[in-house]
């Protein structure tokens, strides 16, 4: 690691910032503000979810039973572990440990990929069972179930799109981590990517019970 002097500007310090601290603070605040917009973005879908679940309580339990809670649960576990490896990656960047950064980032990406593969097989099963909204939807099902599946595909689809974008960001970060870009003075990109990844995980933590676990409490 290089030793900072008061006069020399860090090569990663952009021209319009005065100090590395200011740059880091701006980046992290920026990501938090962005995540607020994401909360509002998903918020619209959650609002629709609340309204329709209130309108069709029984149909939603029926529809929820068509989802495989084991696969959903597996994916929840996968994402929680990936959040752990991501947190470790940020820690590794802060102490400038290159090998550990690359390892934990690759693990995070692998877990993210596992999630998407499981999701792919779940979607595939929905096509086979005529549960995809549209002209092929099983018309014998109760009123309201099609709206459930519309929201299911919209919510999990947009979530999956966020995962794919996340994997793209991780690819960029892991390449730079392998070059040894990040250290105690400059780790803002890893930190910010981590915030994004945790957010995408948290969205899933809400989606899983709301979509998979309706009416599954004891005695139901």
């Amino acid at each position, binding site marked *: 690691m290089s030793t900072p002097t008061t006069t020399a500007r860090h090569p990663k310090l952009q*021209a*319009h910032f*005065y100090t590395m601290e200011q740059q880091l603070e*701006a980046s992290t605040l920026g990501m938090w503000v962005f995540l607020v917009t994401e909360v509002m973005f998903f918020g*619209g879908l959650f609002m629709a979810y609340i309204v329709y679940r209130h309108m069709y309580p029984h149909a939603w339990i029926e529809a929820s039973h068509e989802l495989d809670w084991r696969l959903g649960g597996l994916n929840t576990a996968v994402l929680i572990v990936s959040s752990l490896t991501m947190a470790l990656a940020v820690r590794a960047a802060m102490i400038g440990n290159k090998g550990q950064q690359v390892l934990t980032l690759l693990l995070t990406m692998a877990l993210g990929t596992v999630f998407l593969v499981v999701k792919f097989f779940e979607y595939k099963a929905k096509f086979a069972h005529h549960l995809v909204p*549209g002209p092929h939807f099983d018309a014998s099902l109760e009123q*309201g179930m*099609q709206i459930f599946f519309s*929201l299911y595909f*919209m919510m999990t689809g947009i979530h999956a799109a966020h995962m794919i974008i996340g994997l793209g960001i991780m690819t960029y970060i892991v390449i730079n981590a392998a070059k040894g870009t990040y250290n105690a003075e400059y780790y803002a990109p890893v930190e910010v990517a981590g915030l994004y990844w945790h957010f995408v995980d948290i969205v899933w933590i809400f989606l899983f019970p709301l979509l998979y676990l309706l009416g599954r409490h004891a005695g139901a």
Partner: protein
Amino acid sequence: MSNEAAVQEPSYLGAPHGLASWLLTKDHKRIAILYLISVTIFFAVGGTFAAMIRTELLTPQGDLLTSDLYNKVFTLHGVIMIFFFLIPSIPATLGNFLVPIMIGTKDLAFPRINLLSWYIYVLGATITLAAVFNGGVDTGWTFYAPYSSLSSNTSVTTAALGVFITGFSSILTGFNFIVTIHRMRAPGMTWFRLPLFIWAQYATSLVMILGTPVVAITVLMIAAERTLHLGIFDPKLGGDPVLFQHLFWFYSHPAVYIMILPAMGVVSELVAAMSRKQIFGYSFVAFSSLAIAIIGFLVWGHHLFVSSQSIYAGLVFSIITMLVAVPSAVKTFNWTATMYKGAISWESPTFWIFGFMGLFLVGGLTGLFLGAMGLDVHLTDTYFVVAHFHYIMVGGGVMGFLGGLHFWWPKITGRMYNETAGKIAAMLVFFGFNATFFPQFIVGYMGMPRRYHAYPPEFQFFNIMSSAGAALLGIGYLMIVVYLVYSIVKGPKAPANPWGATGLEWEIQSPPITHNFHEMPIVTKEAYDYQHAPMPQREVK
């Protein structure tokens, strides 16, 4: 010139040269110029549609445009004016230019994202224009389901996609301002020393980041319903079209504050500068911006008084709507109190702010009529509503934008425009605007519904007045383009501080250097310290 250039660093306009240096710029001032050019183009496009509407309405018969074409024309007028002109108008041009300078820093926190926001705007605008040429769109700018999602066979998906994409440019602008205002202020620039324009931009940014994502997901749901046959608002599947209206207005009512709050910020600056007085009640004006932003999120239900919303919900929304008038009135009173016993100078920016206050007052007070639930049942979907929101969005938003443009034009371009032309244009716009829209209050109250290309003959007198006023308004706007462009070519050079105004932007050269300041400014004074401000000086020494 050569002598000056030797001692001065070249301005942001001069260095470096070439088209690529503009299209790839990360300088907030150049991005502001890019935005200024694009929003002006879209104002002209939206204005053309308005001209078509006013020409059709000259006669009671629907003789010029068929009803289908008329539907498309007013839809495109609304979509383009709101999403591609009014929302970016002040934040992305004056805001982009002034926010970093006013708080004493070199650029916004994320210059590349700032440039990206302009490209996203251009992409969204291009897609929307593609919808115009691909059969247009006829849902009204509100895209109400289920007509938009199931019935309309026009290019709704394309237009919705354009609006969706452009929304992100607005989100990125707001996001950039919030981080910049929090993290980049110069030493000594405390929150309560910030110019009120910054407070207004901050409040606007809050609305942008909290509201825009909701309309983004809403139009995405419409697009998904049309293309992927997902059933979300479809009544056949048990869906609820009113849910669309709730989600849409949750953004689109606060969006009105995206248009008016920055204009209020401009007026706060101009009132102080043009009456050479400390602003009256600084903290009240500052907090009223935040109050408008917050309360503005709780009033959307007043768009649904007749859409099967429960009467109790309507009652609550009606009361909160009255409440939002309070901070607006606080501002208006404080501006008036600032001018009281001030040394008011009759420059062209003064004309614009007087115009703003007159029109905003009428627009705001007629808003109370519409917020009153009982009266609104009578006035819903009449020209009264059309007149009301034009008074706010054009009378307030556009007058504020033009006032700000005239005030900061010498700083942005380094040139002075013709003062007399500026005053004449302000008068033309003010009187043309009133002639256009005041008659609409009357025909609206008499019961003329909006969005029809034909109307009963007894309304013709008012409609002719309206169309004549629109012509005057159009001439006023064209005149501004002419003399402002002329000033760039032939106008006299502007000094650093032509109005004798306070604020960091007037302490640096006109036009500024790329990094704004030669060295980091240190702020020791309160805002609007007009007791110690320099006197106006119009010529370069």
